């Protein structure tokens, strides 16, 4: 698929105008929900996905700016991503509600229509509640009541608030006698044979899962997504039968930045098999919406057991440390093997003290994560830092973990891991941000300083330019560097300039990187009719 399509895209991209800004920049929404012909369902080989990504390097690995960002460096709204908590603060009740449309399966009997035959967690799929809602039901592993189910729910709330499309997840408690078997319920056995399901099948599944002290089963019910399942998306290339899918996935910022979010929440199972594309119909159009699914293996949960200490620290197959361990007879190893975890069966194994976001690894590499540049990670880190301690605690409470110590420990880990992310990624580029034009002044914040990751600098310097957009050329306006602080006065020429004129501003932190030119943030302004707009932000790395 890829060579022809990618070549076409890149050739056409090369024919785009040389000028940095087009008249509709910055684009706020990518209209990738145009009507498309029905695509074919594509099922991924997870063996192949592992082999291809562990032993090869699919996709384009050139270090280049993400292709789907707008000129402000933000991700436009699309079928992949919606700017939520990172763009406008969501109230706590909205964060807690997440993607959920209601309260989950109705009280009473759940009718089993089939048994879950994919994935490693025992469960039923689909089941129908008394209101006719369809859900997939998964359980906790024996010995770890609440662990996988809470991880699923908490994960869905976080990833939704970040901006991804995720299913609705609800914690439910089920009595065995509330599970009714539909007459035409089918189960696919281990050999792939479909047959009618009977009560023994139900009991066999229930025998493998955790029970509460009063004999009930705690489960997570995920609402079946609307639309037609057309298979997972990969972390590289584009889908050849979806004309809306034009940006190679390894160059999508929300997929590159997913590495940072996955690190935050220890989502080491963030592989293609845990994504899904759905063909949805809205109004007269049908298009593909892209989802992340299955968060049972995040935080301290490994779905069917507690998370392995390796998770997040090393790929399943990584030749260098393996060879060194062989050569040194195991006397050498990475620091993660020394990590100590408190014993909380309801949350599994997670910690924050040894967490280094820039070194975090999923189960195996993928092109989008490998392509994540500091600017992508900065974008993601800003969103991570948007979650306050109280908001994090509120989201963790949705996991309904009965042990308050475990719940507080988990929330504390997420808070600390958030801070590690901010500490690292907000300091890799100039973090002057949150620009606002306020009359004749420009306000800004230094996010690293705001969050306490950097000391307040001695000051900032500002250099104003006239900017020739077609020629991509700058001419200094009003002299060389000036001392600057927020709010910064905007030169009169910008406020009174002709419509369509472009200007630029470079802001640097003063007093650091003495032997190098301090990293700058470049802002671009455009005069509109009677107003000045910020149309571009570039950060030097």
């Amino acid at each position, binding site marked *: *698929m890829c*060579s*022809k*399509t*990618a*070549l*076409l895209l*890149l*050739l*056409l*991209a090369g*024919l*785009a*105008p040389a000028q940095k800004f*087009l008249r*509709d*920049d910055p*684009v706020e929404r*990518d209209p*990738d929900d*145009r009507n*498309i012909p029905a*695509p074919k369902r*594509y*099922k*991924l*080989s*997870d*063996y*192949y996905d592992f*082999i291809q990504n562990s032993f090869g390097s699919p996709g384009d690995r*050139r270090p*280049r700016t993400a292709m789907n960002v*707008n000129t402000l460096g933000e991700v436009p709204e699309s079928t992949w991503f919606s700017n939520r908590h990172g763009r406008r603060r969501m109230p706590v009740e909205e964060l807690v509600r997440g993607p959920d449309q209601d309260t989950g399966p109705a009280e009473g009997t759940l009718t089993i229509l089939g048994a879950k035959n994919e994935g490693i967690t025992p469960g039923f799929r689909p089941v129908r509640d008394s209101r006719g809602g369809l859900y997939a039901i998964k359980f906790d592993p024996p010995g770890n009541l609440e662990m996988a189910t809470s991880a699923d729910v908490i994960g869905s709330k976080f990833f939704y608030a970040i901006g991804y499309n995720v299913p609705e997840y609800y914690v439910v408690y089920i009595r065995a006698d509330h599970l009714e078997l539909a007459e035409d319920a089918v189960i696919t056995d*281990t*050999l*792939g044979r479909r047959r009618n399901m009977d009560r023994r099948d139900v009991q066999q599944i229930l025998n493998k899962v955790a029970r509460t002290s009063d004999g009930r089963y705690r489960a997570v019910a995920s609402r079946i997504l609307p639309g037609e399942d057309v298979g997972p998306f990969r972390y590289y290339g*584009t*889908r*050849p*039968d979806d*004309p*809306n*899918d*034009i940006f190679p996935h390894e160059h999508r910022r929300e997929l590159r930045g997913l590495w940072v979010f996955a690190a935050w929440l220890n989502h080491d199972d963030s592989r293609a098999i845990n994504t899904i594309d759905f063909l949805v119909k809205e109004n007269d159009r049908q298009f593909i919406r892209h989802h992340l699914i299955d968060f049972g293996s995040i935080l301290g949960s490994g779905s069917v*057991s507690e998370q392995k*200490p*390796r998770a997040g620290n090393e790929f*399943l*197959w990584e030749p260098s*440390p*393996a060879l060194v*361990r*062989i050569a040194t*007879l*195991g006397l050498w*190893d990475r620091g*993660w*093997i020394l*990590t100590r975890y408190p014993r909380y069966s309801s949350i599994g194994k997670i910690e924050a003290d040894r967490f280094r976001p820039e070194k975090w690894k999923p189960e195996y590499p993928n092109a989008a994560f490998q392509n994540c540049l500091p600017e992508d990670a900065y974008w993601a880190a800003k969103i991570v830092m948007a979650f306050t301690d109280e908001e994090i605690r509120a989201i963790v409470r949705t996991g309904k973990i009965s042990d308050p110590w475990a719940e507080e420990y988990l929330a504390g880990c997420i808070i600390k891991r958030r801070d590690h992310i901010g500490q690292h990624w907000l300091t890799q580029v100039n973090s002057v941000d949150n620009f606002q034009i306020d009359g004749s002044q420009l306000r800004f914040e230094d996010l690293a300083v705001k969050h306490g990751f950097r000391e307040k600098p001695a000051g900032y310097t500002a250099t104003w330019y006239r900017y020739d957009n077609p020629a991509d050329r700058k001419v200094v306006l009003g002299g060389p560097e000036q001392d600057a602080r927020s709010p910064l006065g905007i030169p009169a020429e910008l406020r009174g300039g002709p419509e369509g004129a472009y200007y630029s501003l470079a802001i640097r932190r003063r007093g650091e990187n003495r032997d190098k030119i301090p990293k700058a943030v470049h802002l671009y302004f455009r005069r509109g009719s009677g107003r000045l707009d910020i149309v571009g932000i570039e950060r030097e790395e």
Partner: protein
Amino acid sequence: MHRRRIWVSLDGLPLRVRTSFPGFLWIGLLTATAAAQTPPDSRLKQWQSLREKKAEQLAPPVRTGLENFLYNFREQRVLEKFAAGWHHFHAKVGGLRTGSGFALGSEYRRERLVNGLLDIRAGAAVSKRHYEKAEFAIGLPRLANEHVFLEFTATYRNFPQEDYFGLGPRSRRQDRTNFRLEDTTYLGTLGARWWRKRMLAGLRGGIIAANAGPGTDPRFASTEKVFNAANTPALELQPDYYQFGAFTGFDYRDEPGNPRSGGNYVFSWDTYGDRNQSRYSFRRYSAELQQYLPLFNRRRVFAFRAKTSLTDTSPGQSLPFYMQETLGGSEDMRGFREYRFRDKNLMVYNLEYRWEVFSGMDMALFGDAGKVFTRRSDFDLGRLEGCYGVGFRFNQAKAVFLRIDIGRSREGMRYFFKFGHVF
């Protein structure tokens, strides 16, 4: 097709693409077509233009050859079908004694019959060196909510090239001979598990009919040509036995298939009565202690095993040479050949330092020490044979499925490829 790699620079960025000669034509055509167009002045128009171009050449996703193979391998559930067998028949690969050559067989297996209580299996296997084994087992392993089990097995073995070096710790390597061991065993076991199924106790009883005869390995002399009845009990005439015994154990290993913490302690007592000659009755006491000490999040494990077996014979009784305890081989003394030492009693110690190389493989350094001995007074740490080596263990989540151990002793190097863990 002839393919070449070219460098194309677009938008100031070098791009490495692979194409073929027709590909050059295709690029040229596209370039010419696109150059004739005016670049859009709108980002959305630009994107829309890309989408329209792509819409003209949509194609369904296609799997590569390897991907297709792996997809079908998984989708057709090849491994599951192999494990499940055909109409309850399962292929058996290996499973006979080390040194017997490649073995192949079949087993008929039914589980959870009669309300899920009854299991049956019957199978036979033969190896390249004509080792034969047939077994029938019927069991009720899930009585009393899986706390009680009852099993009956009948086993026939015909092993024509069993090694014999003579009895005692000083047997010589150059005295290697071989003999045929043919036996049939009927054994019933009744046991119970309790306290999270960690405690185990039970009784067993059965009968054994054995014959020993000339070995068929042409490389070595047959046992009766080198040894005689005076130094090799029951060489000429082999008794039949009844057996009765009891066993108990405590197992708190985390994963019995690949333990990283916990322990397993097993004790047993058995009495063997000579049914027809009254010359070879004996009693046997066995103990095996396994302990696993994890370090560093269980990525390092010290595994220790101590095993002993002591045999009592009443005055006037002796122990047939083929019923004597053996030492050597893949399960205990890995620097020695299988069954290198035989005697009434044995003791063996194994220490392994295991470390994880990556998620699918562990390695181990091991040291084995042990001896066989005749008199109880030799039950001490003196005159132990020793060996050491390195092992590679390929594992899944809960079990080692392949083990490669390389052991070295005063008698040289030994290599073992085994399915399953050593302990």
